[in-house]
């Protein structure tokens, strides 16, 4: 942008690019005392090129980078992406999925509104406690979302190091404290119906920490004819 004329009375203040309220945005403000003459926005400090990232990923892998766009409201961003793919592929979702999605989106919406409201009140500089109150209420929602997405039962006592999904195959790199964890995981996987097969690879022992590592490969069942939708 062409530089506006800077006279002795007009001062240019750079607001950002780091600012506790705005995040990464830079705004050049030409001010004369308290009178603002001009604002020049300088964007791009959080531009990550999601379009380019998605060019090299499958649709399923794309959900994860898309959800990174919004910190506190991931579901609604992810939903719009997923709905676009479903429309392009002409996939119909069952009612149960729609209900679950609606509930997650509503929880995320309330979560994000509480966060925004708390920050907004705090940024006035007078009521810092309000942010703490909304955080307490957000905890309820975060617990619910964690219950929904925390699919690893705690008594399995395993941790995931890597997870990759390639078409009908899920590969996991698992870390556990004891050898028995592999047996427990095998039993749990055998309980679930929709897998064609679940295999647990050789168990390696980490000489430094003593923890056990192994690979798990799960093949999802191929959809049967007439079992679509």
């Amino acid at each position, binding site marked *: 942008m062409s530089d506006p004329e800077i006279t002795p009375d007009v001062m240019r203040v750079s607001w950002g690019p780091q600012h506790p309220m705005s995040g990464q945005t830079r705004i050049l403000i030409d001010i004369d005392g308290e009178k603002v003459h001009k604002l020049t926005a300088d*964007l*791009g400090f959080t531009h990550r*090129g999601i379009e*380019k990232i998605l060019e090299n990923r499958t649709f399923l892998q794309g959900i994860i980078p898309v959800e990174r766009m919004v910190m506190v409201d991931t579901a609604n961003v992810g939903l719009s992406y997923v709905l676009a793919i479903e429309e392009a592929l002409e996939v119909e979702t069952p009612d149960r999925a729609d209900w679950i999605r609606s509930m997650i989106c509503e929880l995320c919406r309330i979560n994000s509104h509480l966060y925004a409201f708390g920050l907004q009140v705090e940024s006035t500089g007078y009521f810092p406690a309000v942010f703490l109150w909304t955080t307490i209420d957000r905890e309820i929602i975060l617990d619910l979302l964690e219950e929904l997405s925390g699919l690893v039962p705690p008594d399995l006592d395993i941790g995931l190091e890597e997870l990759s999904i390639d078409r009908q195959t899920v590969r996991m790199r698992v870390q556990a404290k004891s050898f028995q964890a592999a047996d427990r995981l095998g039993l749990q996987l055998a309980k679930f119906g929709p897998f064609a097969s679940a295999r647990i690879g050789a168990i390696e022992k980490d000489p430094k920490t003593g923890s056990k590592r192994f690979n798990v490969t799960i093949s999802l069942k191929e959809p049967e004819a007439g079992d679509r939708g």
Partner: protein
Amino acid sequence: MSEGVEETFVEAVQAAHPDYIESVGVLKPKWVSLVAKREGFSELAFSLRDEFGFIHPVSAGAIDYPKENRMRINYYLINPSSRFSLMLGVDLPRDDLTLPSMTRVWEAMSFHERETKEMFGINFEGHPNPVPLLLPPDWKGGYPLRKDFEGEGAEP
């Protein structure tokens, strides 16, 4: 919603500008896609704003089709009174990427055209401030959103 409002709109646009329009299609209820010819694009845009009420610019962007040697530039518009959405597209050959700037028609397209220029290398003639929007000012890596971009960070 009464039936056929999209068709009525399509017929009205085609009757008003038979020379400027390449194709018109209805994508969804109240959502129309219009592909314009490069010649007379500004006149068509002014007419869409003044006569058809598309006063609200939503977004603009481009799609690269390297195999067909063309780029499609899309302007997304809304008519707030009739709630019609319009995708106004125009095809440019990849070796001559010049289009009159739509900032004369919709001033708010300025940021979107700046982004499209830096990401795809499309030259918007008459843009009041054609400097990069998101990329750093000293960026020399080419046009990142083109399909043949192989610069820093591009995956093979």
